[in-house]
């Protein structure tokens, strides 16, 4: 495997409003990279640029390059649908499909990609649910509605749904902000386990969380990346005054 994700001169706009200013960074493969920063700093926009979900919003535009395993997601002729199949995403609020059962939720991505054989689906669903540390809790209720689970289980269901299509990268946009501390701890354990299998990028406004789960951390402020480095170094010995102010709680 070559390098993980290389972002070059990435700019993003909403209806002409410049929300990301020339972001450059390289995220290591099979590692967890955290993006921290106050609300409105562009960290969610940034992560949404990594699987071409930013452009889904009307009026949103992007320039720059995002190389995933050497391939530019924004090169001409690249199909965003294919990009999103390789790069999974988990959102702030658990969003299982309410009309689908637990099983169908996890199988959704595969089914819609054309996988039909029941045995293949069953195998993939079990693997994804195990990987998301949810299998033991739901194996007897695969036919129940996805929204009948608890909030934390729903979020792990969403992670399983994203993992089922075997992405090489998993993007997590504040995956724990709607969860209680116990559910949060389980998701964090899960992130540490996933690290061996894929590249994880997590956006969080919880600095302790970034410190616990990530190898590298980027600090965003007002659409710019102020600092990027090894997580421990960034939290114990920030190079930039603004980073220091933020992590010591002096603003934001």
């Amino acid at each position, binding site marked *: 495997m070559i390098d993980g994700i290389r972002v070059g001169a990435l700019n993003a706009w909403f209806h002409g409003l410049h929300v990301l200013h020339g972001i450059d960074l390289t995220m290591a493969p099979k590692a967890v990279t955290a993006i921290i920063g106050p609300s409105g700093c562009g960290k969610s926009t940034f992560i949404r640029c990594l699987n071409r979900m930013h452009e889904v919003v009307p009026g949103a535009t992007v320039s720059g390059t995002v190389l995933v395993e050497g391939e530019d997601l924004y090169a001409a002729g690249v199909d965003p649908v294919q990009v*999103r199949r390789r790069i999974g995403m988990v959102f702030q609020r658990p969003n299982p499909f309410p009309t689908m059962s637990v099983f169908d939720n996890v199988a959704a991505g595969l089914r819609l990609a054309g996988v039909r054989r029941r045995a293949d689906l069953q195998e993939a669903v079990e693997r994804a649910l195990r990987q998301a540390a949810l299998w033991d809790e739901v194996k007897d209720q695969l036919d129940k509605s996805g929204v*009948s689970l608890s909030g934390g289980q729903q979020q792990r269901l969403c992670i399983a749904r994203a993992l089922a299509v075997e992405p090489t990268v998993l993007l997590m946009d504040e995956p724990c902000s709607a969860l209680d501390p116990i559910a949060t701890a389980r998701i964090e354990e899960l992130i540490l386990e996933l690290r061996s299998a894929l590249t994880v990028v997590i956006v969080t406004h919880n600095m302790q969380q970034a410190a616990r789960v990530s190898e590298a951390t980027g600090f965003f402020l007002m659409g710019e990346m102020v600092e990027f480095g090894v997580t421990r170094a960034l939290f114990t010995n920030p190079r930039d005054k603004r980073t220091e102010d933020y992590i010591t709680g002096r603003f934001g």
Partner: protein
Amino acid sequence: MKPAQRRVVDVVMAWLTALAAGAVILPLLMILGFLLLQGASAVNVDFFTHLPKPVGEDGGGMANAIVGSLVLVGMAAGIGLPIGILGGVYLAESRDRRLPWVVRFLADVLNGVPSIVVGIFAYTLVVLPMRRFSALAGAVALAVIMLPIVVRTSEEIVRLVPSSLREAALALGIPEWKMVLRVVLPTARAGIITGVMVAVARVAGETAPLLFTAFGNRFWHQRLDQPIAALPLQIFAYAIAPYDDWHRQAWAGALVLIGMVFVVSLAARLATRGRLSGAR
């Protein structure tokens, strides 16, 4: 406001709202009661299985009109629902601003067009070129009446589907059209079916647009390009006739019509209740 005063206001308001809620169902109860009183005696097996008797003979039924109404509404739904639902999806999902605005506005105007005018439209469009009244013309008229209702309710319901679900689907690498078909529409299903039932109930009782399209028929229709009987037409014809027995049958027809709408609505309601255990 003092506590005692507040309690009085509370009780008064609670009663007022309860009364208003009662007033909503009162007309329906009165209509049903009146229909039962007047028409129940004429609702019998003959009514559902026999053709109308010639003038002067008592008895007979409205079997042809009952089937005719089912055929007309069924055909109208066949034309109107696909167009209406797909149109509603377009209005809700389109990123374009102008065309949806125009369509929405015109749909609302169409909704306000008197049904007799819709009848004239279908007369010009179908009856004149075909040179005869027909079930098809009646179905076209009814479909046109259904369209704006179905379009607007489908749009509203599809719009209510949370954007987080759309994003979840797109982020899985699902193309937009599949997302709409497999995620958005199933989520909106119950609401869309409610809108469809409102439209069906509305056109099932329409008389004016059928007067010079379906035209009515005292016998069984043989083909869909020929005049066909319909309950509202039959009720109208019988109600203005000078025979007591026909009046009774008109009441019975009205009762059966309401009963049919009721049964269909109830069936749709039950059919859309969550299939999945544990679903809200």
